[in-house]
C-alpha cells in the first residue's frame, strides 16, 4: 500500500446538460499523505464541495478515480463510509435533537458508543459538555461547528473531510477550531479541509488552489509564497481609498489591493523594490498624501491567491 491517505486521479464531474452544463470538477489530481493536513483553497463555486462529495463516495465521478485509504470511492463505498469522517459545508445535524442525542445517534450509526469514543472527542467535547441538553438548532455558529466535528469524529475515522468548517464563525472560535485540528493531527488522522480564510491556509502542511474546477497550484505554503513573482510594497497613508486609486496609477504598479490598514502594491519590476520605494514616496507626495509609510514585505498566501485569481479572470470578468 502507498503512503497516501487520499489519491485523486483526473477526477471530473459535470452537472446538467448542453448549454447549461457546468463542469464542477475538471481533471483534478492530487495526493494527501498519511497524517497530513491538506487545504483546499478557492472561491465560492470553484468546485470544492463537489470535490469533497466525490472523495467521500457521495457522488460518482464522470471520469477519473479516487482512492481513500486504499479503497476505491465507487466500488468500495461501504468500506470508505466506515473509516472517514465528513463535515459538510452546511450544518447537517438534527436541529431538533440535543447535543447529546445527536452525538449518541451518530455513534450508534457507526456501531460505536459515546463512552467508547470519548477519548477521541474529548478535546472538543469539553467545550460542548455544558450545553449537552441544548437543542442543536439553538447553538451558536461556533458551537454548531464543534458539535459537527464531534459527530464526524465519534467513530475514530482515519481520514477527516471538512468542507468550509469555519465559514460564518467568529475569529476566536475559528482559531480554537484550528488548534483542535492540530491536536487531532497528533492522533495521526489525515485531514482534508477547505476554507475561504487565507490566514487559516497557513496552518496546512500543503495547500491546493481550486479554481473553476481545476487545481491550479499545489504546494506547501512556504513554497507557494516563495514563488510569488512580484516585489510587494505595503503602503499606507491617511486616506486609504484615494491612496488605493493613486497606487493603481503608479507607472510601476502591476496591481494593488487593500490588506487591512495597508495597501499591497505588486510591482512590475522584479527585485528592485528599494529604488521603487523611493520613487513611490515621491509620487505619492506629489499627489498630496500625508503620513506616508512604505515597507517592502514578503508575499502572504492571500497575496498569492489574489494574484492568481486576478490572472484567471477573477469573479467580475465572466458573467
Amino acid at each position: 500500500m502507498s503512503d497516501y491517505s487520499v489519491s485523486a486521479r483526473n477526477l471530473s464531474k459535470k452537472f446538467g446538460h448542453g448549454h447549461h452544463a457546468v463542469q464542477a470538477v475538471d481533471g483534478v489530481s492530487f495526493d494527501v499523505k498519511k497524517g497530513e493536513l491538506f487545504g483546499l483553497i478557492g472561491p465560492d463555486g470553484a468546485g470544492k464541495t463537489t470535490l469533497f462529495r466525490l472523495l467521500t463516495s457521495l457522488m460518482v465521478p464522470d471520469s477519473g478515480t479516487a482512492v481513500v485509504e486504499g479503497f476505491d470511492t465507487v466500488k468500495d463505498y461501504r468500506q470508505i463510509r466506515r473509516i472517514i469522517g465528513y463535515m459538510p459545508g452546511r450544518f447537517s445535524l438534527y436541529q431538533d435533537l440535543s447535543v447529546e442525542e445527536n452525538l449518541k445517534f451518530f455513534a450508534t450509526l457507526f456501531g460505536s458508543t459515546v463512552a467508547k469514543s470519548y477519548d477521541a472527542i474529548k478535546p472538543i467535547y469539553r467545550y460542548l459538555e455544558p450545553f449537552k441538553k441544548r437543542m442543536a438548532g439553538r447553538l451558536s455558529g461556533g458551537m454548531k461547528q464543534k458539535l459537527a466535528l464531534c459527530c464526524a469524529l465519534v467513530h475514530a475515522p482515519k481520514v477527516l473531510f471538512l468542507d468550509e468548517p469555519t465559514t460564518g464563525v467568529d475569529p476566536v472560535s475559528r482559531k480554537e477550531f484550528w488548534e483542535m485540528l492540530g491536536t487531532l493531527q497528533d492522533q495521526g488522522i489525515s485531514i482534508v479541509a477547505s476554507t475561504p480564510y487565507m490566514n487559516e491556509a497557513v496552518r496546512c502542511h500543503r495547500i491546493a488552489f481550486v479554481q473553476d474546477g481545476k487545481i491550479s497550484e499545489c504546494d506547501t505554503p512556504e513554497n507557494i509564497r516563495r514563488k510569488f513573482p512580484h516585489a510587494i510594497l505595503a503602503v499606507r497613508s491617511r486616506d486609504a481609498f484615494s491612496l488605493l486609486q493613486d497606487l493603481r496609477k503608479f507607472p510601476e504598479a502591476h496591481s494593488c489591493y487593500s490588506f487591512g490598514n495597508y495597501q499591497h502594491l505588486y510591482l512590475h519590476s522584479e527585485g528592485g523594490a528599494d529604488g521603487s520605494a523611493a520613487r513611490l514616496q515621491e509620487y505619492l507626495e506629489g499627489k498630496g498624501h500625508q503620513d506616508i509609510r512604505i515597507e517592502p514585505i514578503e508575499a502572504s498566501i492571500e497575496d498569492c491567491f489574489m494574484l492568481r485569481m486576478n490572472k484567471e479572470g477573477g469573479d467580475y470578468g465572466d458573467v
Partner: protein
Amino acid sequence: MAMFRRKALLLRERAALEVLRKGYVIEVENLTKRFGDFTAVDHISFRVKKGEIFGFIGANGAGKTTAIRMLCGLHRPTSGHGQVAGFDINTQQEDIKRHIGYMSQKFALFNDLKVWENIRLFAGIYGVEEKKIAPKTDEILERLGFTDQKNTLVGQLSLGWKQKLAFSVAILHDPEIVFLDEPTGGVDPLTRRKFWELIYEAVNRGITVFVTTHYMDEAEYCNRVCMMVDGKIEQLDSPENLRRKFGVETMEEVFTQVAKKAQRTDD
C-alpha cells in the same frame, strides 16, 4: 383622511431632517433588549456620524444581530431611546424602515427573477414612485456597466456581480444609512476587496454605512469600530487608536484580546 395622513408624514419627515442636521444618522442611548431574563443587548449608547463607515464587531452571540434588528425597526427596545435616520426608534419604526437600506449575505436578491425585475421589485417595495422606477433602473444598470445583462436571471450571475447588484438595490431609494450584515461571509478575498471598493464609492456619494463582519482585515477599512462583548459595548474607536491602545499590530489581535473577556459563549 388620506390628505391628513400625507400631511402628518410630511411633518414627520421635516422633523427628521431637523434631527439629522446635527450630523448624526444614528444616536442611541442605553438601548436594551431583554428576552425573558436574558439580556441580549445591555444599555448600549453610541452615535454614527453622517458619511462614516461604522464597523460593528463581536463574537457569535454577543448581541450584534439583536442590536441591528432594533436599529432597523424590527425589534422594539425593552428600554432606552434614540433615533435612526432622524426617526424615533421607539415610535416611528415604519418611518425608519423607509429611510434605511439593508443587505445581508443570506438574503439579497431573487435568483429566479431577471436583473431588471429584481431592481423593479425592490424599487416597488421601498416605495419609489412609479414613474421614477424606470429611469432609476436604467441609472443603476448604467453605473454598474451592466445594461447588457438586464435580462439575465440573477441566479446565473457570478457571486461578485450578485453582490454588486444587491448593494445597488439596497441603496436604490437613497437611504440615509445602509446596514450591511456580514455582506462578505464566505466570499473569496478578491471579491471581498472589490465589494469594499463599492462601499467606498457609495460613501464618497454621501451614504453612511453600518457594517458587521467576521473578517478583521475588513475592520481596518472602517472609520470607527464598535466591539460588542456579552451585550455591552467593550470598545469604540478608530482602528488606529484601538491598535495603539492595545499595543498590537492588527485588529485581529485587538479582537482576540477584547473577546477574551466574554463570559457568554452562546445565546
